[in-house]
């Protein structure tokens, strides 16, 4: 049997198990172990425990739970609401100010949170009821937050970028910066669409039911200052190059936890336990997938499937942009079903050599890949953000949320196209800060 046929069988079995409802971590591990036993014998398994431990034994991985803790601590406090309110008080008179406040708050919150659902939850809790109260359609209110929340993994810090950095051995700092430009681009595209949509449907974009005085505007600021201070401190530590991502994340997490405790008075044991519990659940889920996905990649490499597939695609000699389009379609479909951690860790060992040999910049590609993963967060069946929104606004049915989100998928596809035409959107900042890539 050729390696390519074998690869096809692995693919079919993996998709089959995922569809049955086997948790992603166990499906990947199960397939890896199963194929190793069938093709190499039980002896191959003697090494599995050591490998699994080795995959997780990395100081770099610590950035993941720390950035999740940072987001969880802030999300559980009223900080997200305060941020949103401050923006609203300043922007209420601007046409469409409410939409801008919401998406802007999502973008700023993303700078503190490494994960998208946390961003969605933190801003949506305040933003969605407010937008609906002021007469925006439910689909727009929920869709814009679902989409704005996806920025959590594009605007740094980002768990997805950390995973990409680990899978491809790229600099995490560089990857983080590569997400910033595209993140801002998406915010603008989202705002543009939201305003157009509201205008098209005949909703008035201005006219809040009350007027904010200058005093009210300024009293809203001190509340968001500690929040902004931490964002700036973490960014400084990361790009001022004072410390590694894990170190910056650790300090950021502690600061956010302290902020939640001191400023938002979350000192009850139950509240802290909730934050830690949420952090632990998400981290353990992602890290277990990391471990088993590496096992999966080991199996693919040992059976020479990865290498054969890369060689096969290189031999096709297709136009590099056709290749890029195919890769995007693949990522998009994979993202519909599999959470970002699974897609990146499974696909990157195979994709990276292909991308690099076709002359694409691997840092630039991280931004493209992340936008694809963002799309997966607001499309069924595993659109985590849709479910988060559904939890926040239980009276809006999932169909409405989905309908509201679809146009933003269009914005993201447009964003990917723009990135292909103007790769500098992603590469300008990292090249500026770190110099051209070695």
């Amino acid at each position, binding site marked *: 049997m050729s390696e390519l046929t074998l690869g096809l069988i692995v693919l079919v079995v993996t998709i089959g198990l995922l569809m049955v409802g086997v948790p992603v971590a166990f499906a990947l591990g199960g397939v890896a172990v199963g194929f190793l036993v069938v093709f190499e014998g039980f002896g*191959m398994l*003697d*090494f599995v425990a*050591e*490998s699994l431990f080795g995959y997780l034994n990395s100081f770099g991985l610590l950035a993941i739970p720390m950035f999740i803790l940072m987001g969880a601590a802030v999300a559980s406090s009223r900080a997200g609401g305060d941020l949103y309110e401050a923006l609203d008080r300043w922007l209420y008179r601007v046409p469409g100010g409410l939409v801008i406040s919401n998406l802007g708050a999502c973008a700023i919150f993303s700078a503190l949170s490494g994960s998208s659902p946390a961003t969605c939850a933190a801003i949506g809790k305040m933003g969605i009821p407010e937008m609906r109260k002021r007469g925006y359609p439910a689909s727009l209110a929920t869709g814009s937050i679902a989409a704005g929340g996806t920025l959590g993994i594009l605007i740094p810090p980002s768990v997805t970028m950390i995973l990409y950095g680990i899978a491809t*051995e790229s600099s995490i*700092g560089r990857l983080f910066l590569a997400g910033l430009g595209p993140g801002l681009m998406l915010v603008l595209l989202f705002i543009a669409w939201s305003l157009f949509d509201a205008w098209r449907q005949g909703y008035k974009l201005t006219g809040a039911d009350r007027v904010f005085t200058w005093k009210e505007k300024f009293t809203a600021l001190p509340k968001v200052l500690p929040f902004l201070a931490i964002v700036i401190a973490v960014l400084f530590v990361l790009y001022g*190059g004072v410390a590694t991502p894990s170190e910056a994340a650790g300090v950021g997490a502690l600061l956010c936890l302290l902020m939640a405790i001191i400023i938002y008075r979350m000192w009850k044991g139950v509240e802290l336990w909730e934050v830690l519990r949420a952090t632990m659940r998400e981290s353990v889920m992602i890290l277990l997938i990391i471990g088993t996905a590496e096992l999966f990649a080991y199996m693919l*490499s040992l059976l020479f499937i990865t290498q054969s597939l890369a060689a096969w695609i290189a031999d096709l000699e297709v136009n590099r942009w056709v290749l890029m389009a195919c890769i995007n379609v693949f990522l998009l479909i994979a993202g519909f079903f599999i959470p970002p951690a699974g897609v990146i860790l499974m696909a990157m060992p195979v994709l990276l050599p292909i991308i690099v040999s076709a002359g694409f910049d691997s840092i630039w590609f991280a931004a493209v890949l992340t936008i694809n993963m963002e799309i997966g967060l607001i499309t069924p069946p595993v659109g985590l953000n849709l479910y988060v929104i559904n939890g926040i606004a239980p009276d809006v049915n999932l169909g409405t949320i989905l309908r509201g989100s679809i146009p933003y998928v269009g914005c993201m596809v447009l964003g990917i196209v723009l990135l292909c035409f103007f790769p500098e959107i992603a590469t300008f900042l990292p090249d500026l800060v770190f110099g051209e890539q070695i």
Partner: protein
Amino acid sequence: AETLRASHQWPGGTGDMRDEMVQIIAKEMEKSDTGVTVRVYPGESLVKAKEQWGALTGGQIDISAFPLAYAAGRHPEFNATLMPALVKSHEHAKRLNDSEFMQDIKDIMNEAGVMVLADTWLAGGFVGKEGCIVEPADVKGKSTRAAGSSFEEMLAEAGASIASMPSSEIYTAMQTGVLDAANTSSESFVSYRIYEQVECLTPPGDTALWFMYEPIVMSKESFESLSPEAQEAIKAAGDKAEEYAAQAAKDADENMVKVFKENDVEIATMTPEQFQAWRDIAAKSSYKNFAESVPNGQELIDKALSVD
């Protein structure tokens, strides 16, 4: 036909000498008509760098280009192959290969089921962000990155503060001021473009502090399963790789000096007296710790030091 798996941690196909060594063995086996092919998995594409020893002794891979000190957690004696100031030069390293010291090390490898196909020692040097690092006083109070725990012990004894990080992070750490000085292999200094960040380089010359044993190793079980002809062929291939590496390791040092010079980095030399001063510091720290924590540790050090 039989396929052997060869794994290593360096980039494949870019001219890294350790990759080249493994490729030489693969090519020689291809030519040998013994029906044995060697499939190379470079750049940790199969097994992570530090897990290769376990994979080799467990039978998951057959061949590896392996920095032996990575397995020191299992065989603490291996730390002697990354001990500061123990090997002075490439010529000295060559004499060590046939010494009692290396025989003891190879006995331990053999007992674990691993044999050596090609002996290789790689040299390295020091860089300083401000000023040269030639004697112990030069690292005092400086934040330093060292390759290997014995080096960390020696530098700490000399008064440096130690920052552990992979060599891939030295560049950024230097750029941002986290690091004042670093020590690693000649190959890494060049491939990570450290010359852009430093003022001074102390290359390995006749007096080098940093040498690391990075042999091509093979699982004994895999070797014994080969036909006698194939065993001969792979041994011959190993010799060929070793011959190549002896020259390539020296070339790597020269190339480093050339590249650093081109980038206006000052090149410093360590005098024999300065070398001795480092060795005295090492004797008080790394050698002492090694002798205390490893059975026969002192004996190993003595055997190594007795080779002139």
